[in-house]
């Protein structure tokens, strides 16, 4: 199977506190990795290291077989963060403008206008997230959940093969939450490799095919979800948390 992401012995410190310690795992095409752990356990840090938002000091990360320092195929990676909660709602941009912007990574001559095929891609990804009817609406006028679906569409328009999601459902109401999780599961069923952190641990355990469980000491435990029952996963997670509290 195609190797998508390989993390080898990655460690990371924030000045005096070590958040990641010798983290290693490999993801193949179609894997759904759920990263769980307490706040500050290093879940977001790992995603930021993969995206080069934070500098990688120790260890090695390869994307599609290429070291991240040399990796330039930005369009192959989609990223969705907790945008809805930090977003300037008065920014005068439409859903279409926000989503189309991310075509940048695929365009050879970005100073030219958008093509017919670009608009087709726009309609396709908005359809995927159920936001096509809102394409001409100002993004600031949408609800948090709708905005988050737009940001998922933005990540999808560059036709990524790996989707990284850092708490994409923060500040989203229950109905929108179910819809967003449904969209993500469908994408995974269609072959998209997904890495996701989520405050709703039971749901993440349910949908993931692989799990990375962090304890307070930063060394994540990588598990194949298929080998374990939900109770066994919960027992391991509780053990880690118990260790954390001890």
């Amino acid at each position, binding site marked *: 199977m195609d190797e998508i992401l390989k993390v080898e012995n990655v460690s990371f410190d924030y000045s005096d506190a070590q958040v990641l310690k010798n983290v290693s795992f490999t993801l193949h095409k179609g894997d759904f990795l759920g990263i769980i752990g307490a706040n500050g356990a290093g879940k977001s840090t790992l995603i930021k290291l993969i995206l080069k*938002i934070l500098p990688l000091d120790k260890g090695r990360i390869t994307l599609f077989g290429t070291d991240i320092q040399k990796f330039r195929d930005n*369009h192959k*990676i989609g990223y969705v963060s907790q945008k809805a909660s930090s977003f300037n709602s008065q920014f*005068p941009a439409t859903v279409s403008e*926000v989503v189309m*912007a991310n075509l940048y990574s695929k365009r050879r001559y970005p*100073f030219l206008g958008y093509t017919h095929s670009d608009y087709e891609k726009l309609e396709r990804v908005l359809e995927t997230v159920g936001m096509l009817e809102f394409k001409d609406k*100002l993004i600031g006028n949408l609800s948090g959940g709708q905005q988050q679906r737009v940001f998922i569409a*933005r990540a999808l328009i*560059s036709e990524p093969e790996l989707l990284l999601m850092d708490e994409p459902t923060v500040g989203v109401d229950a109905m929108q939450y179910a819809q967003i999780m449904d969209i993500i599961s469908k994408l995974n069923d269609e072959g998209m490799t997904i890495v996701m952190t989520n405050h709703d641990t039971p749901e993440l355990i349910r949908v993931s095919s692989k799990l990375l469980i962090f304890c307070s000491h930063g060394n994540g435990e990588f598990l194949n979800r298929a080998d374990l029952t939900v109770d066994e996963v919960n027992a391991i997670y509780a053990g880690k948390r118990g260790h954390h509290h001890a």
Partner: protein
Amino acid sequence: MLDMFSYAFMQRAFIVAIVIAFIAPCIGVSIVLKRLSAIGDATSHSALAGIALGLVIGINPILGGLLFSILAVLSIEFFRKAFSKFSEIAAVIVMSTGIGLTAIISGFITSGSSNLNGFLFGSIVAISNFEMCLTIVLGAIVVIVFTLLRHELFFVTFDEEAARLAGVKTKLVNTTLMILTAITVSVASRVVGALMISSLMVIPVACAMMIGKSYRLTVIWSIIFAQAFSIFGLIISYLADLRPGGTIVLLGVVTLIILMAFNRDR
């Protein structure tokens, strides 16, 4: 009223005003939406020091202003990095330096203070052929760069992190935006006045945000508003014998207040 166009100085004033009213809102949209409006003020006050220096040492004041504007925007970046948690003080430091330098350098202007006054509040009669050509050339550079970088500017303005992840060279785009701001401020100081140029970058954008239904339409409406303020402001200032800069800016403020009154529900 039409007789005003028979004067060469009025023709030059209109050409320069139209060029400025095209470039100021283009740059203004990114400046306003990135919440960097204070940078326009800091840059224009620094430009004033360059203008004063130009008047003292006998080079064209707009070129002096251009040099100091570019130094100002680069200094703002330097101070923003030094005080990363309090980046808004960068603009204040640079603005204070600009005012301080203007106060000292202007003391050495021997040909009377009227020249510097013209740059403070704008002057129609003072625009030379050279300055008109300089404005057209620099304005064309701003328009071309803005058009080529329009997708990058939107992306960086809306979400800098996502833009960088998509491969946009965000530092280069930000530095280019700052240099375009410096050019716009320095060429606009002649007609609108250095003290008021930042308002020509901000007020048309604020008006456009009241009615714009997209980013693209906000840019287009900003240009339309800026053109209307400049052209009608110049006409009113000629007919009523008022300062052009103040007339243009106040026309914009009145329009903004009217739009706000009609858009209370927005």
